[in-house]
């Protein structure tokens, strides 16, 4: 038995490594995707004052602290039985939409685009953001940097701090915005809409007009027929900040739609001894192992899953793009993992359009931003749609609001079984007896998990636009017989 280690890959709430075991004939025997780190938040949150949880739990992830801050703040609304003021909800969603614009921008341009713009077999030295800018134009590079920078300013202006915001409280937010700030945010929102449109045009030009890429997107190697999960509003339209969690089966039929407080009835988590991360699945379907299909509880919570789980978008430009995507992909739901990149850009456009709607709302500069809770706290669940998947925070407190129990199901974690399966399938399809394992082949395996944006998509997390991989092939005695590396 030969063993190929891909170690380390970067950032999955820590590090990550992949072990590929080969048969004696050179085919793939099995693949393991290990997460070698545990953070421990569910335990050490016990004993902490509930109102501190938005600032404590955002330290799970400095890439998407806004998502934890928001899920936690919503859990506090439920826990303290207090409804935030209308202006406070709008401010929260405005910040959250700006966060989506920055996060999706970074993922697409820094991580995803190099594979398509430069090609999966391009030399690693070119297959990065700098290569993308060189090919597509400096102007676009400038727009990427500007969009990120400006929306970070929006996050700091509303949330109080650039990284790890501090404005969330049960019943509202700590700080209002003034007219001067509002006007500046409006300008940023409008230019973000233009940027969203431009990004979809780039995708159209580079990917959709290239038959090879479109074939790859539609290929079986990058397809898994799973359940799809996403947050929807009362009309079953995509919403990132609030609503119910809707799950559709692999045929697209609604399987369940649940309110945040009912999540325990619908989700369960499986444990394996070879990884510190758990595998969530649909409880009422059951854990059947790492397989897809209607009988397996494996689901996905990604941009594409959110679009699959919803009936459409609430904003006009995003809705147009939504329709175009499904007509190109041959209907809904779509199970092509690589189409997740497309869905992400449609979400980016939606987030920017939503920013414009919210910032033009006359109530957005209201100072009526806090309702003081009066009820005794007991239990609360808060759910938002994080960029990397449905994010659930669940707290139980004593009557003083001190955390007794805490349960968290985090964005990336939702997709653990699915991205593990995607990597396994790509490895099995691509590594064949007698076929040389090339750098481009390794990159194609990498392309199987990149669409999930494994909490590793931020500009800072992979500047060269790829994960460094090292594959070492051992013979049955454990002797190294071949070493290949990518971007190292």
């Amino acid at each position, binding site marked *: 038995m030969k063993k190929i280690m891909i170690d380390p890959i970067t950032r999955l709430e820590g590090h990550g490594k992949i072990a590929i*075991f080969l048969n004696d004939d050179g085919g793939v025997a099995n693949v393991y995707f290990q997460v070698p780190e*545990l953070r421990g938040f*569910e*335990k050490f949150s016990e004993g902490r004052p509930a109102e501190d949880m938005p600032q*404590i739990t955002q330290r799970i992830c400095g890439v998407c*602290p806004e998502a934890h801050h928001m899920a936690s703040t919503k859990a506090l609304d439920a826990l303290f039985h207090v409804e935030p003021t209308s202006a406070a909800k709008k401010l929260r969603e405005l910040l959250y939409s700006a966060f989506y614009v920055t996060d999706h921008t970074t993922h697409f341009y820094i991580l995803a685009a190099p594979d398509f713009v430069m090609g999966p077999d391009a030399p690693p030295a070119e297959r990065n953001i700098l290569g993308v800018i060189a090919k597509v134009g400096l102007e676009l590079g400038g727009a990427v940097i500007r969009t990120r920078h400006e929306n970070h300013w929006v996050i700091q202006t509303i949330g109080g701090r650039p990284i790890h915001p501090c404005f969330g409280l049960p019943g509202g937010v*700590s700080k209002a915005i003034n007219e001067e700030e509002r006007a500046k945010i409006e300008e940023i929102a409008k230019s973000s809409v233009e940027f969203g449109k431009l990004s979809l045009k780039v995708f159209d030009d580079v990917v959709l007009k290239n038959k090879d890429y479109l074939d790859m997107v539609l290929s079986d190697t990058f397809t898994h027929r799973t359940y799809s999960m996403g947050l929807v509003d009362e009309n079953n339209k995509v919403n990132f900040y609030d609503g119910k969690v809707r799950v559709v089966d692999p045929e697209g039929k609604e399987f369940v739609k649940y309110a945040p407080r009912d999540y325990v009835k619908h989700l369960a988590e499986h444990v394996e001894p070879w990884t510190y991360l758990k595998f969530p699945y649909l*409880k009422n379907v059951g854990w059947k192992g790492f397989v897809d299909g209607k009988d397996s509880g494996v689901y996905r919570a990604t941009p594409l899953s959110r679009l699959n789980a919803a009936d459409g978008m609430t904003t006009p430009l995003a809705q147009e793009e939504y329709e175009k995507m499904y007509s190109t992909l041959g209907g809904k739901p779509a199970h092509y993992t690589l189409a997740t990149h497309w869905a992400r850009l449609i979400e980016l456009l939606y987030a920017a359009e939503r920013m414009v709607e919210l910032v033009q709302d006359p109530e957005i500069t209201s100072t009526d931003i806090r309702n003081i809770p009066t009820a005794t706290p007991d239990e609360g669940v808060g759910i938002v749609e994080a960029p990397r998947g449905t994010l659930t925070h669940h707290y139980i407190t004593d009557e003083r609001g001190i955390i007794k129990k805490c349960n968290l199901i985090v964005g990336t974690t939702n997709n653990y079984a699915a991205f593990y399966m995607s990597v396994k399938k790509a490895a099995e399809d691509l590594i064949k007896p007698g076929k040389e394992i090339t750098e481009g082949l390794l990159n194609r395996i990498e392309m199987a998990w990149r669409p999930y944006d494994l909490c590793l998509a931020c500009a800072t*997390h992979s500047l060269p636009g790829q994960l460094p991989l090292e594959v070492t092939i051992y013979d049955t005695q454990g002797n190294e017989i071949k070493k290949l590396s990518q971007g190292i």
Partner: protein
Amino acid sequence: MAKLKIALYWAASCGGCDIATLAIGDKILKLAEAADIVFWPIGMDFKYADVEKMPDKSIDACLFNGAIRTSENEHIAKLLRAKSKIMIAYGSCSYEGCIPGLSNFYNRQMTFDRAYIETPTTDNPKKIFPQTKVKVPEGELELPEFYDTVKTLAQTVDVDYVVPGCPPEEKTTWLALEALITGKLPPKGTVISHSAKALCDECPRIREEKKVKKFYRPYEIIPDPEKCLLEQGLLCYGIATRGGCGALCPQANMPCTGCYGPVEGVVDQGAHFLSALASIIDSNDPEEIQRIIDDIPDPAGTFYRYSLPDSLLRRARIK
């Protein structure tokens, strides 16, 4: 002059410090002129073997973020210490243990029990826990060991400088990088920030007399936007926290939570805050004082929110 060689690494951390490093904006070009980044797992291609092959002390400075909580974290910390002339604890996790350091109120088994057995969504009837070595049909898989106690970088290797904050603000980061680039290094052991004094010095809120009859929790009151939060009964930690961030949280109407660590000369930030609080309680009646203090929920977890592993307490004793 030869370019500096700089390494950046993240151990048990959230990634926010790496984003903060990049948040220096266009100054990153100045950094690129003066220094080569030779190792940065999440910013650049790398492999551990490359670092192992480097001669000792061949890296000029290492900015190390994240606490030490697994055998892998410890191994890399020791490796980078050997290879680096200057070791900098960058950010609150490596400096003091930070939020993940609250784990020291519990131990490994309690953390595992919660994560892998107790949580209401966990389905684990065979009580399986992750193992450092696991036999699978095809071979053996390994995981790093998860320690009982979260440690700071300085409890693991010799540290030359500290950059405080969760995460450090842009200007604080630049202060440290500028010192490296210009070679104008402060004495060993310096905590690099624009201030050695309490955050109150840079807070724009108006301070009058600190006399508190009752402490409130942030959700209970809407504070006056101009006045000192502590004087209004909110547990603002600025009085016992090093300045340098610009008092961002108090300006967003939220109390400082202490992420820049203790002020110069103070070893135990929590003890310092407690003694500062004792001096502002407006009572001489021991029973009333007790009542006022009882209003503070979770004193240990609040006073040591960022600094438990680095404090005199280090960790709770688990019976």
